[in-house]
């Protein structure tokens, strides 16, 4: 499976970066323990590197044995109720970045209204009125429940 080799490769790269940083952990000024702050991270990093390398090799091996034969993957995609659209994912993440950036300055209610409206309109433009009502009611209800009933403070932003 190609997916496994990709995942293994990403994991391996991560573990190498992690190991490099683990080696740079400074030694404590006074040695108070038998085991220093570097030992544990180094052990994790080495195990991580070995495990992801194993996955990479396994993926490559399976990919080469599958070659020439029929690839079952496209058929599988059809069946999957959660078949993914990379464009949609990208747009949602971009909207979420905007939401996170404006969360404090605009305040919870306004930023959440904008985010919910944008996401629901983008994904489902047929229910305009439902989306609008939901985008107004949902943040207000949550705001009331959290600040009044649960005593959790939320940013008031431009409405404060």
């Amino acid at each position, binding site marked *: 499976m190609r997916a496994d080799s990709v995942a293994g490769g990403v994991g391996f790269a991560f573990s190498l970066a992690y190991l490099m940083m683990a080696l740079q*952990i400074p030694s404590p000024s006074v040695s108070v*323990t*038998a085991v220093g702050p570097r030992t544990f991270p180094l052990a*994790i990093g080495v195990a991580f590197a070995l495990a992801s390398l194993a*996955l990479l090799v396994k993926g490559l091996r399976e990919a080469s044995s599958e070659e020439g034969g029929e690839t079952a993957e496209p058929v599988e995609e059809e069946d999957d*109720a959660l078949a993914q659209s990379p464009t949609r994912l990208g747009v949602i993440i971009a909207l979420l970045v905007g*939401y996170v950036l404006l*969360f404090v300055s605009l305040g919870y209610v306004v930023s959440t209204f904008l*985010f919910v409206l944008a996401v629901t309109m983008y994904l489902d433009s047929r229910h305009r009125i439902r989306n609008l009502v939901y985008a107004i009611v949902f943040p207000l209800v949550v705001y009331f429940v959290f600040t009044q009933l649960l005593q959790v403070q939320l940013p008031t932003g431009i409405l404060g």
Partner: protein
Amino acid sequence: MGDLFSNLGTGFDQALTLQNLGYAFVGVLIGTIVGVLPGIGAITAIALLIPFSFGLDPISGLILLSGVYYGSMYGSSTTAILVRTPGDVGSIVTTLDGYEMAKRGRARQALATAAIGSFIAGTFSTVGLMTLAPALASVAIYFGSAEYFLLMVLALSMVSSLSQGSPLKALIATLFGLAIGTVGTDPQTSVARFTFGNPNLLDGLDFALVAIALFALSEAFSNLAAKRPGAAAAERQQLQGSLWLTREDWRRSAGPYGRGSVLGFLIGVMPGIGPALASFVSYAVEKRLSKHPEEFGKGAIEGVSGPETANNAGTGGAMVPLFTLGIPGSATTALLLSVFIMYGLQPGPQMWETNPTLLWAIIASMYIGNVMLLVLNLPLVGVWAALLKIPAIPLYTGVVTLSVLGAYSLTYSQFALFLLLGLGIVGYFMQRYDFPLAPAVLGLVLGALMEQRFREAMLVADGNVASFVERPLSLTILIVVFLVAVLPRLVLAFRKRTHQGNQ
């Protein structure tokens, strides 16, 4: 025995106050709701409720959050039966026969047997917890750092080798959890590790934040970015049939109830494996013992009664290692452990001496909560089924905003929100590439504890690694760890055979 009842009495005194009854009710109610909603489970709900539970006293907070945990097991069967999508991992096998029963117009009977089995198991496992935990705690008092370290290694190796799918991927997920657990100031030497000079990272990553990102956000991403959102829920079956089980249904369910309770509890007690595996084992056992195994997969009531009983018994069992050793066996109990720590409490054998009221109050609330759940789930099942009509896009958009809200209220910083976003994306890709997420959370929570125990053990033994083999208790645990490396292969082979039988 007299002691037991007087302790339990003290617990009920606490659990029966109007306030705590209210929290137990809210807990099981939220548990049922998140159990029903596919992709949102107990762990998400607990993570989102943690900021709020800061403001409660420990007894109320833990009664509430435990209620969410065992309550979610009831709700998840509803989704498994009506939509063939597990509401939570514990109900994966219920989709096999539960959905078939619903297709044959017996949805209500399937839901009823799931609720009754859950109630029997919930009560049985609470009795088990109550009797086994204090006994185990009195043994655990002799454990030193070496034993604790090895027990945590045991928990992690179990979760890696026994979770669904590829053990190698589960191992990588565990190591990822351990790796991100090392971010922050080293508590023993005050050296900053992996902080990139960012002061926000000095305290390490918040467990609840990571859990919200990996579970709630990634699930919301994969539902919202689906080409056809809500496609899974479109195959919903109608609520048909009667809630009253026939004499035949009772006769066929009695055995699964009994076996599921015992099996589920025992499996739940073992560190690293939770309710999900308990339900698989129960299904396999029922199929093997059945006089008509050919009915399995075609709406056999035993295939619902057994697993649903076992997964609920598993939650009670999973509380045992948490209460006696302070070592969580699953991602959800790991989060509960972090709540204890947040309150400044250290669960473990000493807690039965220092703070027994709290533990007994939680146990008492579990009896009460299970009664509430039975009442909530039998007559009101129509209400929960209606939750499945919530359209996917508004639902998961709401989940995203609640995740942001939850992360923000943990630390009141914008940095936390970016961390949430980054980890959410990581979680999304882990899920897409079939890496289990639960071992990552367990690794994160156990990592810090493991490192601390390892260094303590080494300090005591003057850096002599052989001390792990020289102590009889730790040697025993070490042998068990080795057995775990062999045993799961047998279980896997067993499971594969039952799987092939279904197809």
